[in-house]
């Protein structure tokens, strides 16, 4: 059930009505039933996977807490070893399922290629949202283990946390401590909240249909035939930037908007990423919930582990105190971004994409002191506007390079396209790409729509970056203006939206 379908709109409408007219005590039950209906409708076979993940993490969480409360012979509470064993068991079961389903064929393909074997892969479609709910349940287990949250006693309530339907498709990756209480709380009907939710959903549809889907026409053509469109490689990646951002953040707007109809405030996943001044900053603004998940559950545990401490000491001995302190952090970052790459998909291009980001962050960590010295020598003021713009442009370029790996069909294609990007340039080729259903829309019209749409996004982003809340400003205007703005946005989706073939959300495939 796509987020843009008539069925989804109807489904949300019915769920919202039931949510507010039924007794508030069972509101969470309405959400649970709706979530499972949504999930089963999207693929009844895959419900076993989410049930398995839910039950495993629920039981492990309960056991971890139980053993944490038990007293041993000496009167000490908590059997740490047993808790750890249960935690590891829970994580292996969860990640094991994800690994088998998502990565078996990748491993088999590589083994076959390396050792000329003829191993057979498995034939299974990726269950809906498996990468998202696996990370969510793993995060919950770790939080229970670290006593950040109490284990949920009611299995049905816990099942809602794992399966909450707006987020199941493409995140954001929820944290139990932030999300669960909101899901279980009773919410009274609030017209203002509903209106805000609808506004957010509308903004998401605008991004998806007016920007992402039009940009996708060019992206598919250019990345689909890189040699034919060699003069457009640089445009291909720029269009992909528009498509990916508008698609993913538009999807998030819809998800967050739908959740807010139920009084649930989800974590933001984007914070104007293309205003970032470094790759580190970019990852604090792009897919934020994945970034914070990685930071809390991968980066810190690795950085604070015993073996990393020993490695740090060794590095200090070899490279001195300063560099010795930075190198373990760089290594932890490399591991984190390797995992980010693997999370994105079982393909080498994703792994290269992750490592590329990790390497840049590691390199800038290692070079931080050198940069500081250079800036001092060159009398560069960090706070100067021109320097800020320079950093934003530099980051934008580095991010765009990474998209070649993310979008190209293979690593080889990515490098070839990078070569084309710097050696060939022929914008006139753009006009040879057919747009709209059956090529019925003039390419120049689509380019104008994309340009205007990007301008709107840029202005909105710039204002938000300066701390101006556009929604609040609009809300303060007279109701007629307020209404006209959103009616205009709705009509823009109809008048300017893509008429090319219908496509789903990119991150829904993860």
């Amino acid at each position: 059930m796509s987020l843009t379908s008539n069925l989804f709109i109807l489904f949300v409408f019915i769920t919202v009505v039931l949510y507010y007219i039924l007794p508030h005590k069972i509101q969470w039950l309405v959400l649970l039933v709706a979530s499972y209906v949504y999930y089963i409708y999207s693929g009844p076979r895959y419900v076993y996977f989410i049930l398995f993940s839910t039950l495993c993490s629920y039981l492990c969480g309960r056991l971890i807490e139980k053993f944490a409360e038990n007293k041993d012979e000496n009167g000490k509470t908590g059997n740490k070893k047993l808790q750890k064993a249960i935690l590891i068991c829970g994580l292996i079961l969860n990640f094991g399922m994800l690994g088998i389903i998502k990565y078996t064929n990748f491993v088999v393909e590589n083994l076959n290629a390396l050792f000329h074997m003829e191993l057979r892969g498995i034939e299974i479609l990726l269950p809906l949202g498996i990468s998202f709910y696996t990370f969510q349940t793993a995060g919950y287990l770790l939080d229970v283990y670290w006593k950040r949250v109490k284990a949920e006693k009611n299995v049905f309530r816990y099942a809602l946390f794992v399966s909450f339907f707006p987020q199941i498709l493409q995140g954001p990756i929820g944290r139990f401590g932030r999300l669960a209480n909101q899901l279980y709380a009773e919410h009274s009907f609030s017209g203002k909240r509903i209106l805000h939710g609808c506004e957010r959903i509308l903004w998401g549809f605008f991004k998806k249909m007016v920007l992402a889907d039009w940009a996708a026409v060019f992206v598919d053509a250019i990345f689909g035939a890189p040699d034919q469109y060699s003069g457009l490689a640089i445009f291909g990646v720029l269009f992909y930037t528009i498509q990916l951002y508008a698609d993913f953040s538009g999807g998030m707007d819809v998800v967050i908007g739908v959740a807010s109809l139920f009084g649930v405030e989800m974590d933001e996943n984007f914070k104007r990423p293309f205003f970032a001044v470094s790759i580190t900053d970019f990852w604090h603004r792009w897919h934020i919930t994945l970034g914070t998940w990685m930071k809390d559950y991968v980066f810190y545990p690795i950085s604070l582990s015993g073996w990393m401490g020993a490695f740090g000491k060794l590095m200090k001995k070899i490279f001195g105190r300063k560099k010795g302190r930075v190198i373990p952090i760089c290594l932890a970052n490399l591991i984190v971004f390797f995992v980010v790459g693997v999370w994105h998909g079982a393909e080498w291009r994703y792994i290269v994409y992750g490592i590329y980001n990790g390497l840049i962050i590691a390199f800038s960590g290692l070079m931080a002191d050198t940069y500081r010295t250079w800036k001092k020598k060159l009398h560069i003021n960090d706070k100067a506007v021109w320097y800020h713009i320079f950093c934003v442009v530099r980051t934008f370029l580095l991010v765009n390079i990474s998209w070649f790996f993310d979008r190209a069909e293979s690593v080889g294609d990515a490098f070839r396209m990078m070569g084309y990007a710097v050696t060939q340039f022929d914008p006139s080729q753009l006009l040879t790409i057919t747009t709209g259903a059956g090529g019925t829309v003039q390419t120049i019209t689509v380019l104008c729509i994309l340009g205007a749409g990007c301008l709107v996004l840029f202005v909105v982003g710039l204002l938000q970056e300066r701390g101006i809340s556009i929604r609040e400003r609009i809300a303060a205007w007279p109701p007629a203006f307020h209404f006209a703005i959103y009616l205009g946005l709705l009509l823009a989706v109809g008048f300017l939206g893509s008429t090319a073939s219908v496509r789903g959300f990119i991150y829904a495939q993860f």
Partner: protein
Amino acid sequence: MENNIENTMENDKNGKRKPVKRNVKRKKVLRKKRTKGMRCLISGGKLVGGIATVLLVLFGLDYLLYPCTFMRNDIHTVTTEAHQDIFLGTSHGKINIDPDVVSEETGRSAHNLCVGGEYAVDAYYLTKLMIETEKPERIIYEVDPGYFVTEKEVGNNYLLFYHEFPLSRAKLEYFQATMMECDFRTAIFPWYEYIFKYDLEKVWETVYQKWMHNYDVSFLKGSKQEYHESGFIERYPVDTTQLSMENEALKLFTRDSVKQQNMEYLERLIDLCRENDIEFVAVSTPVPASTLVAYEANYQDAWNYFAEFFEKKDVRYLNFNREYFADFSHEITNFTDYDGHMNGDAAREYSRVLGEVLDAIPSME
């Protein structure tokens, strides 16, 4: 007490403004009491007003921007006029069958409701709609094997039919079966796919036709083809020496690639006709001989498959590429492409042959 004192300006007896101190506690309470009820009313009014405005705008835009298609005429005709024979099927049926010529042979009134992109699912709900409105006596279903190995694209292909359905149970069922999975724009902006190719000068013409309930079809005439009131699209002859089979995007049939959903709807269509005492006849229109030779395996597989299927369903199947091959010339000069779309003259000739065969059916029983 201090907080309840409000400094205001009021007119005195002489009409001069002067400052006055007033206890507003009672006034505030009253305002609060009043506003609670009032606020609800205002909010409700705003909501209703807002929704009404949006609906009005959407309805108005639909009226202005959704063009008058030939399907508007077709569906209007079959739901308001009683016809004995209705042709359903794909573009081959639309272009190769002239119902007026068939009628001359059979003596039965007929309308052509075929169209490119009409899958079995559409034919099924169109039949349901006709049963609700003007039930035909016979459905002649044109079978294009390519339509059973491909899936219908979501979007405007459903809208072409759905938009013209009059309010009915069939419309609701068709929406539920097909449009639910479509992009929400199909429901609120049915014109969205037309907007970029819309001729603004035609807005008034569109509005005039809709307002006057005018079903004139004279404007549906282009440089390559012409739509007739009977639902037949006449293609003008082309220079066949310029045609190339490589340029055709043929949907080739293989038994393994049959989409079961399409077959299920065809079965349901046959059963629906049977339940409602509507005679059902299947037809495959002629394909150029050179295409049949080039893709012999695919076509033979298709003809065998459908012959078996219709035999199992006890349905008469008139295949002009096999049993009735000799009845009509398969020379490419009769066609406008290698896919099997005829020119107008050939279509009329073929329709005469088809009419004769259909007319002979009762005596065959």
